[in-house]
């Protein structure tokens, strides 16, 4: 792979960077200073983001500048506005935001403040998944240090911009990563996604204009402000700009979170970063970007990791979490695990999703355990088609259907073989343990 400039993880590698003194020594809060002391208007900040080509890193890949510009005109709509930072990170395979929060929490605080300024929010809520204790505590400590240094709170750095930053904890529900489920949860309720419209920019938290952004998304803002949108737009491919974080896990020699520019191939990441498939085996299949996308075959590893190239192969960029499976892997088992996950996480409001995820889970389970029925593969396909696209309140139903459809398409023969043999020829020997009705 060609040499490239890094920036997202540079500070994270420095010991003690989670503390303000070190962060500042490494150039931290220069982006915020440029905005507030350099007299950039909110509209100018939004414009810079638009020109930079930055797209959201939470899964949908929407233009960040565009999203910010959807917030209503403050002259016509004086309601309080909010920024919610999505640090719920629960998509299987995804572990990148955690690195930023643990190792570079001030970077998140600074990015959040720039985003809040751009959308004229007076408060930021950082919604951290409940299990992320260390990341939560690091970000909380960073906010407290920043407040003491006049970087959070009233009249930040002597400007007329005032903004509070609060942390909020989730409690283990994947659906609270969906932006409207997140808002319900922030309001102290069950995380049931809301019907859209109204969209969050019109009516979000407490019926006020709200923007929801992923951690890595706003983390990019200080770099773009400081170095300029042209610098950012020069990195990457036509419609995917800048560097991004890739998590690579599963059957590889060096799983990890790596920083890469858009435009490298998945093969380069697998070979040069992750050290190739473990045990000298071959790659059978992989989730390019988390479990809510189409599986790809090992032979698709030559794909460029960016929005357009993955779409062309029938997948998407999602959360850039590559999950790799070697040629000893049972796809019936993989899909049993994935389907069980969505069944567990469906919030139950929509019948297609509630019933559909249960059926998918039961059917993959019985195929993997040697009780598959002759028409199961056809049933899986019919069910998944009834669950998506866009038939439900939120995209979780799609997220369960999409990998199912890809598994049925790419690994039909393998699934049928499990059904015919009344056992899974690739199953690993299962260790024994006692179990009670598990939660």
């Amino acid at each position, binding site marked *: 792979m060609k040499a490239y400039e890094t920036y997202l993880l540079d500070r994270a590698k420095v010991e003690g960077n989670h503390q303000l003194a070190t962060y500042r020594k490494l150039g931290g809060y220069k982006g915020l200073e440029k905005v507030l002391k350099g007299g950039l208007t909110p509209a100018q900040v939004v414009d810079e983001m638009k020109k930079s080509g930055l797209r959201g890193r939470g899964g949908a890949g929407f233009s960040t500048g565009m999203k910010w510009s959807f917030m209503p005109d403050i002259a016509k709509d004086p309601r309080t506005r909010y920024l919610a930072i999505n640090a719920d990170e629960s998509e*299987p395979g995804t572990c990148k935001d955690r690195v930023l929060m643990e190792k570079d929490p001030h970077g998140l605080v600074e990015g959040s403040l720039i985003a809040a300024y751009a959308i004229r929010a007076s408060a930021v809520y950082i919604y951290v998944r409940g299990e992320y204790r260390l990341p939560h505590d690091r970000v909380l400590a960073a906010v407290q240090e920043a407040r003491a240094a006049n970087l959070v709170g009233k009249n930040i750095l002597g400007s007329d911009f005032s903004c509070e930053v609060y942390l909020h904890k989730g409690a283990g529900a994947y659906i609270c990563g969906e932006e409207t489920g997140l808002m319900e949860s922030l309001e102290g309720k069950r995380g049931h996604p809301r019907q859209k419209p109204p969209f969050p920019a019109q009516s979000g938290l407490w019926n006020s204009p709200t923007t929801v952004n992923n951690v890595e998304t706003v983390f990019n803002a200080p770099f773009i402000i400081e170095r300029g949108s042209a610098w950012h737009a020069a990195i990457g491919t036509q419609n995917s700009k800048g560097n991004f974080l890739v998590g690579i896990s599963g059957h590889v020699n060096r799983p990890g979170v790596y920083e890469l520019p858009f435009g490298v191939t998945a093969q380069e990441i697998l070979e040069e970063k992750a050290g190739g498939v473990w045990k000298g085996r071959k790659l059978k299949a992989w989730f390019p970007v988390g479990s809510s996308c189409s599986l790809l075959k090992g032979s698709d590893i030559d794909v460029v990791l960016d929005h357009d190239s993955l779409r062309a192969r029938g997948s998407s960029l999602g959360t850039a979490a590559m999950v790799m499976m070697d040629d000893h892997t049972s796809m019936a088992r993989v899909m049993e695990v994935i389907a069980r996950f969505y069944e567990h996480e469906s919030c139950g409001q929509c019948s297609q999703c509630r019933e559909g995820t249960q059926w998918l889970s039961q059917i993959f389970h019985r195929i993997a355990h040697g009780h598959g029925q002759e028409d199961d593969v056809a049933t899986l396909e019919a069910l998944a088609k009834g669950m998506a696209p866009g038939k439900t309140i939120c995209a979780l139903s799609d997220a369960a259907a999409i990998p199912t459809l890809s598994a049925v398409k790419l690994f039909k023969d393998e699934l049928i073989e499990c059904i015919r043999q009344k056992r899974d020829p690739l199953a690993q020997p299962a260790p024994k343990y006692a179990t009670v009705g598990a939660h």
Partner: protein
Amino acid sequence: MALPKKLTDEFDELVKNYPERRAALIVALHRCQEELGGWISPQTMEDLGAYFGLEPVEIFGVASFYPMFNLRPVGKHVVSVCHNISCDLRGAQDIIAKACEVTGAPLGGTSKDGRWTVRHVECQGACANAPMIDLDGVYHEDLTPEKVAKILGAVR
């Protein structure tokens, strides 16, 4: 009974972070679980209901939605083993088996001596360091069954 003053003092500060008091409920549930015996008892639901001006059943409705809240008592130590895809691919089942063996707890239950609860959880965001467990709120990563035996064996 009422909530201990230590907690209500904390909550009085916490509610100021939000335009509506009830928004503090989930964070408050976490604190109650931490301070009041590791689970959300019916009594805690009543007390939280009184504090927030909500019916206890409404507290139940929220608490029961979130997997992290225990609605029944748990062991003194809780071992949560991730069994999602990245961990499964790298041996999560062996980790579960070892955790059950060492603690004497069945998966999803508590050991007879009340010391241990072992359960499985979905992806914990530690996929690049799979397999993993969360022991009493602290992550242990890059595990093997031997390492699990050692980690759990060292707990008093």
